[in-house]
C-alpha cells in the first residue's frame, strides 16, 4: 500500500508545489486584511481535495489500474491506498488551516473559536467529499465524476446558508460558545462514520471492473 500512496505523491508533486504557491498568495491576502483567515482554510481544503481527483485522471490516462491490478497488492489495497491518500490530504489541509488560523488569531485578534469551527467544518466537507466522490470515481471514472465534485463541495455550503437565512440556525445563537465549538468539532465525525460504507462500495466497484 505504501508504494501506491507514494505513487500518488510522486505523480502529483508538481501540482502540490503550485498549490503551495496559491496558499502563500491567499495567506498574504488574508494578512493584508482582504478576507478573514477562515476563507484560507476553505480554499485550502477545496484546492487540496482536487488532488485525489487528479490522481484518478492521471491513473486513467496511463491505464495504471491495469498495471496495479497485476501487482501483488490486490484491488482492495488499491482502494484503501486511495482512501488513505485522500484522508491524508483532507487532514493536511485541516492541520495547515488550523495552524494558520491560530497564528492569525494570535496576531490579529480574530476570534479563535470561530476560526477553529471554520477549519473543522472544512474538514467535514473534505470527508464528505471522500465519502461521495471516491465511489463515483471508481464507478463512473474521473471525468464523469468531476461535476459531482462541485455538488459535494457546494451542497453543504448551500444547505448551511439556506438554513441560516430561513432562521433554522437561530437556536444555535442561544448556545454558549464552548457548546458551539464542541458541536462544530463533531461535524467531521458524521462523514467519517460514512467512510467505511464508502470504502466498501468503492471496493465492490473496482472488484467488478474488468481491467
Amino acid at each position: 500500500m505504501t508504494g501506491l500512496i507514494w505513487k500518488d505523491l510522486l505523480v502529483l508533486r508538481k501540482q502540490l508545489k503550485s498549490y503551495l504557491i496559491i496558499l502563500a498568495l491567499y495567506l498574504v491576502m488574508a494578512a493584508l486584511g482582504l478576507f478573514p483567515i477562515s476563507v484560507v482554510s476553505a480554499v485550502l481544503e477545496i484546492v487540496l481535495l482536487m488532488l485525489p481527483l487528479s490522481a484518478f485522471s492521471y491513473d486513467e490516462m496511463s491505464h495504471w489500474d491495469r498495471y496495479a491490478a497485476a501487482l501483488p497488492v490486490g484491488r482492495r489495497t488499491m482502494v484503501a491506498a486511495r482512501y488513505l491518500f485522500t484522508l491524508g490530504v483532507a487532514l493536511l489541509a485541516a492541520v495547515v488551516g488550523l495552524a494558520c488560523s491560530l497564528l492569525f488569531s494570535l496576531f490579529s485578534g480574530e476570534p479563535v473559536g470561530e476560526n477553529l469551527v471554520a477549519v473543522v467544518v472544512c474538514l467535514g466537507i473534505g470527508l464528505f467529499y471522500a465519502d461521495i466522490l471516491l465511489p463515483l470515481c471508481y464507478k463512473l471514472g474521473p471525468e464523469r465524476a468531476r461535476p459531482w465534485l462541485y455538488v459535494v463541495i457546494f451542497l453543504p455550503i448551500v444547505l448551511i446558508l439556506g438554513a441560516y437565512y430561513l432562521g433554522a440556525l437561530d437556536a444555535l445563537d442561544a448556545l454558549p460558545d464552548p457548546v458551539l465549538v464542541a458541536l462544530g468539532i463533531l461535524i467531521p465525525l458524521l462523514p467519517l462514520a460514512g467512510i467505511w460504507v464508502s470504502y466498501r462500495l468503492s471496493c465492490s466497484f473496482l472488484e467488478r471492473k474488468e481491467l
Partner: protein
Amino acid sequence: MTNSIELSGLCKSYGGFALQDVDLTLPGGAILGLIGENGAGKTTTIKCILNLIRRDGGEISVLGRDNRKEERLWKQEVGVVLDECFFHDTLRASDVGRILAPVYRNWDPALFRAYLDKFALPGGKLVKEYSRGMKMKLSLAAALAHRPRLLILDEATAGLDPVVRDEILDEFLGFVCDEDHAILISSHIITDLEKVADYITYLHQGRVVLSGSKDDILDRYGRVACTAAQLAAVRPEHLLRVRRGQFGCEALVADRRAFHRLYPDLAVDPLSLEEIMLLMGRGNEA
C-alpha cells in the same frame, strides 16, 4: 518440477467473441510463445491468468498456486510487461523504483539500477521523454528487479526496432537459463518467437488450434504445393488446411514425412511458424 502456468478449459465470452476451452501448459525453464491474429484471444488469455478479468470457466494455476485464491502470493514471483508502459509521464525511472520497492518483498534496488544502466535509461529523465523502446525497457527493468521466477509478457516487443527487440530477446534467453524460470510471451512478431520460444500455442478465433514444442512443430508440419487436380486426389483427412488459388493450391499437413510416404509424387516443404499461422488462419477445411 511444478509447471509455471497451467490452464485447463479456460472460457471467457464477450459479446461477439469467446475464448473456448483453452488448455495451456508452460513448464519451468521454458519460453512459451502465444501466437494468433488480432482478436484471437491472446490478451484475454493473459488477462485471465493475471486475474484482470473474470473467467467464465476453467482452472488456472500459476507457479503451482490457484490464480484467484492465492493471487498475492504468486504475483510476488511474477514480472509483468504488458503492451504499453503504464508509468505516468511525470515519473522518472528512479521514482518507479521507489514505488515498486514496498510492493515486492524481494525488490532489489541495486538490481533495478543495474538494469537501468544496462538498458542505458537515464534515471532522472521523465517517462514522457522516453522513446517507446526506452519505455518498454523500463517496464522490463521493473518486471525483473524483484527476481521473479516467471515473466508474463503481452506484446512486449511490439513497435520496437529490430536492434532493441534483439537486445530484449537476449535478456529473455538469459532469464530462462535458470531452470526454475519461465516466460509466457504473446507476440505478433513470429520471427521473434521462432528465435526464443521452446513451445508454441496458436490461438485462432478463441480456440487453441496448435500447441506443442516449437522444434517438433517445425520438424513435423509441411506445405504441399500442387495443382487443384493433384489436391483432389489427396484424402481430406491427410490435410489440415487448404488454400486454393488461381495458379495452384497449397495445403498444410501435420506430418510431412508420413505424407511424403503416402504421396511420394507430391513435394512437401518444411515451413516457418509464420507460414503455418497463415495457412491455419487463412486456409479452409480440406
